[in-house]
């Protein structure tokens, strides 16, 4: 597979290029949108791995032009960036520094159409008191994308009713319900495709020391352990406030 790598940091670009080649991909690397555009006609990439923020624009712009599957990397991703990427068919959204294992897994998902993945939850670290999270496997060309917001339980339950209706499996609905109950004020973007759905949650989740929160986190961890959905799509690190 021909991959176009777009990364402005020379050291990171070089390391990623080496890794991608080692994994068997044909790689062309560029440091800017302009340089990447110059490579398109000769190289004809089948997929894009790009930094979100580049000196002359956003990796999303090139992804839009290219129309090929893409993986974004960013150290400063906002929830809006993630939503924009989702709507454009982003396969994965990796937080920098990118773990090579995570990138390799995302690339496998990209080539395999990611049929194994069922649910991804994205919680931007800087907005949510959570760290080390990533989104994965966002379905391309979604049939349905809807943003839901809530500020109290009543609204949350109404939002869940709309979101839950999109979920095919009861496990997915339960994970969404647990996360919504863990969050006090939040919004969620539900992305519903023909085969699967994704929920992106932007939430201030405080996994406090209460028994209920401990149970809730344990439940989500258990599901991840049993691989009902990909672990990297689940909250993996949490900060306890206070």
């Amino acid at each position, binding site marked *: 597979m021909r991959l176009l790598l777009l990364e402005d940091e020379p050291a990171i670009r070089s390391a990623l290029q080496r890794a991608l080649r080692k994994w068997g991909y044909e790689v062309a690397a560029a440091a800017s949108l302009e340089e990447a555009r110059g490579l398109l006609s000769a190289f004809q990439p089948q997929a894009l791995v790009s930094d979100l923020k580049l000196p002359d624009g956003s990796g999303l712009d090139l992804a839009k032009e290219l129309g090929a599957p893409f993986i974004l990397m960013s150290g400063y991703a906002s929830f809006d960036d993630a939503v924009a990427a989702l709507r454009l068919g982003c396969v994965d959204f990796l937080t920098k520094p990118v773990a090579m294992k995570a990138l390799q897994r995302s690339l496998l998902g990209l080539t395999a159409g990611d049929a194994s993945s069922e649910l991804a939850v994205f919680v931007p670290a800087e907005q949510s008191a959570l760290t080390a999270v990533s989104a994965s496997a966002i379905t391309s060309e979604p049939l349905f994308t809807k943003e839901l917001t809530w500020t109290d339980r009543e609204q949350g*339950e109404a939002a*869940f009713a709309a979101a*839950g209706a999109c979920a095919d499996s*009861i*496990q997915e*609905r*339960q994970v969404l*319900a*647990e996360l919504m*109950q863990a969050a006090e004020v939040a919004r969620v973007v539900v992305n519903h495709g023909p085969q699967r759905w994704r929920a992106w949650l932007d939430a201030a989740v405080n996994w406090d020391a209460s*028994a*209920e929160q401990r*149970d*809730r986190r*344990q*439940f989500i961890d*258990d599901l991840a352990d049993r691989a009902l959905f990909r672990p990297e799509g689940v909250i993996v690190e949490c900060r306890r406030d206070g």
Partner: protein
Amino acid sequence: MADDCAHWSGALLWPQPLAEAAVIDMSAVEAIGVWAYAWFRAHPRQAVVAAPQRIRDQLQRAELPVLWYNSLNEVSGHRSGVSADERSLLWDDVP
């Protein structure tokens, strides 16, 4: 025993009142949220029948004090706690 049986049903994903009884029939429960764990802790040794395996696995992993039965017949053969007669004997209160 079968007369004192509550039938829970559906996707119990959000907090809601749960019927109390000597036996809970969970055969029609699709899913149960973590919020319900507190209920089970407040009702130790609750008899539960016909829970789908996935729900049983979930509640067992949470180490909730539940007594599991496959059917109501099994429950009727089980006497939980101490009967009134046994209590009388324990307290040396035999008439």
